[in-house]
């Protein structure tokens, strides 16, 4: 009796999860399938699901007309720089706010948290003038500088660091460790799942960054992928199959990254603290 009930609930759960998965995946699937169709087939009514004859022409066209390889490289450079620097500053700040006792640490942290409430759009003007003043307009560095620290990630990591027992810190101290070594040899390895999770979130945010990029970048050679796709549409007119091919080029790296990092994302989300 009990067993049957259990399998029934799991059946319902499974069905719901499957529905959810289909709803999530379908747009991506549609995008990829459309990108493999011809112009005629894309606009056919009723629409076909699978392309009747696969064509890579849209990709070839996209790659020929716009320097997507260049965009890709720009996106990659900017994303790596943002993520590496942000992770570094996040780890140091989280350590300072969780472990070090310095005057005003609580006040400073509260102020930082309060600052999280200011939307990024509000900061765009001040950021823009700063970047302009520094003469960094239309420079890839302008895409990195405003994104080298994150209060939100610091907050998440600080909370994790706080859950690490004090005795580990004292133990390391007695073992002769400096704060620096304790941070990198003990705290960071223990927090690895959390750090990987926030690094992934950061990667996605950096990769998809669009508004700021459009504002500070002008030349074609400095465009990142999202901007590149946007320009591609704007310049080439609305041709859905080509648009879908370009969009696929943008999204695919993130999908691949997700597939590889799935294990870490799940463990990072489900493991809030560490066992004592």
């Amino acid at each position, binding site marked *: 009796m009990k067993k049957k009930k259990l399998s029934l609930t799991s059946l319902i759960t499974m069905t719901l999860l499957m529905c959810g998965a289909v709803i999530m995946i379908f747009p991506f699937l549609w995008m990829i399938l459309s990108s493999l169709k011809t112009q005629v087939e894309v606009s056919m009514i009723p629409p076909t699901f699978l392309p009747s004859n696969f064509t890579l022409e849209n990709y070839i066209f996209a790659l020929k007309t716009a320097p997507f390889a260049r965009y890709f490289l720009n996106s990659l450079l900017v994303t790596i720089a943002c993520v590496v620097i942000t992770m570094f500053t996040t780890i140091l700040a989280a350590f300072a706010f969780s472990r070090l006792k310095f005057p005003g640490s609580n006040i400073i942290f509260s102020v930082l948290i309060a600052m999280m409430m200011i939307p990024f759009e509000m900061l765009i003007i001040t950021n823009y003038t700063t970047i302009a003043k520094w003469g960094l307009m239309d420079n890839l560095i302008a895409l990195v500088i405003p994104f080298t620290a994150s209060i939100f990630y610091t907050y998440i990591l600080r909370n994790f660091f706080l859950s690490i027992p004090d005795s*580990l810190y*004292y*133990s*390391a*101290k007695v*073992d002769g*460790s400096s704060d620096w070594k304790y941070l990198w040899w003990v705290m960071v390895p223990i927090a690895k799942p959390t750090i990987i999770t926030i690094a992934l979130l950061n990667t996605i945010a950096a990769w998809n960054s669009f508004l700021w990029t459009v504002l500070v970048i002008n030349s074609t050679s400095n465009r990142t992928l999202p901007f590149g796709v946007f320009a591609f549409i704007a310049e080439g007119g609305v041709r859905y199959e080509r648009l879908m091919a370009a969009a696929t080029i943008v999204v695919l790296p993130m999908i691949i990254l997700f597939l590889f990092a799935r294990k870490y994302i799940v463990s990072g989300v489900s493991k809030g603290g560490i066992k004592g």
Partner: protein
Amino acid sequence: MKVTIKELTKKFGDFTAVDHVSAEFDDGKLIALLGPSGCGKTTMLNMLSGILPSTEGKIFFDDEDVTDLSADKRGVGLVFQNYALYPHMTVLENVCFPLRIRGVPKKERIEKAMKFINLVHIEDYLDRKPAELSGGQQQRVAITRALIKKPKLLLLDEPLSNLDAKLRVEMREEIRRIQKESGVTTIFVTHDQEEASSISDSIMLLKRGVQQQFGTVDDLCDNPVNLFTADFLGTPTINQVHGTWSEKGFVADGQTEIISFNVNIPTGTRLIYASRAEALKLNQDKQFEAEILEKYKVGKDTLVRLKYGNGSLRAYTEDKTIQIGDIVGVGMKDFGVFLFEAESGKRLL
């Protein structure tokens, strides 16, 4: 290494956790820091390791004043009550960590680690993570990690409290063995007087941050300075009977006979008569009479509980004919009998 503390004090706000404690811990000895929960044992240990700064007083390692030296420079080994093993490292990595911090090359540190690992017998689980070890195994790893840097002083904070009774006895003997083999001056915190008596060279007894007595186990048992010490040490707990001093002797409350003692105490002083169970003899050299309330077999002896005054007394006897309800004469041996002032707990005899 000899450790000397002078007037060591720790205050948390208005609260004094350790109150002007002075002592010398001789080289190569195992000293037990004993006292009830909350008496300042951990605080004292943390000051010795450098984790907590002291409010007042000085700490010397041999002749060097280390009071202001930070924890990472004192070179002591510390085993925490919860072991504090690094959860992401294997047993071997945990043990090697202090050497890794000093920049000892990997091959060399593993070589050094193996020597201690063989001493402590943890060679079978070097690749496991701490979460995959039992409490006793974790403890041995923690001790190895503390020993590997060849500390001049080893500090153990209630290392056995998480273990079951049998393992606790095994492990304390093991700690004694390791301590003797390595010859390191060791301070062992415990609130269990039996544990302290069984392994230490000397015991420091604390109460609310104040040192009560510091000496060998025998000193503390046979020559307690106050009622607290007499009460804290010894199994079974020392017998206590309340009463008053009248002329030549002690009169228990609700009793008329005078138990005479050869001391000078003002008449009318409120007293506590205390005697160890081993110090009483039944039906010999009778000094007072008491009724048998209970009797138990303890090994080959019989332990009886006697009603006397408003309290009760425990005593050992070899006499098998004694029955519950008998009135027996009680005599005293020439050790293990004390008189304490009731109010202050000060020893008068």
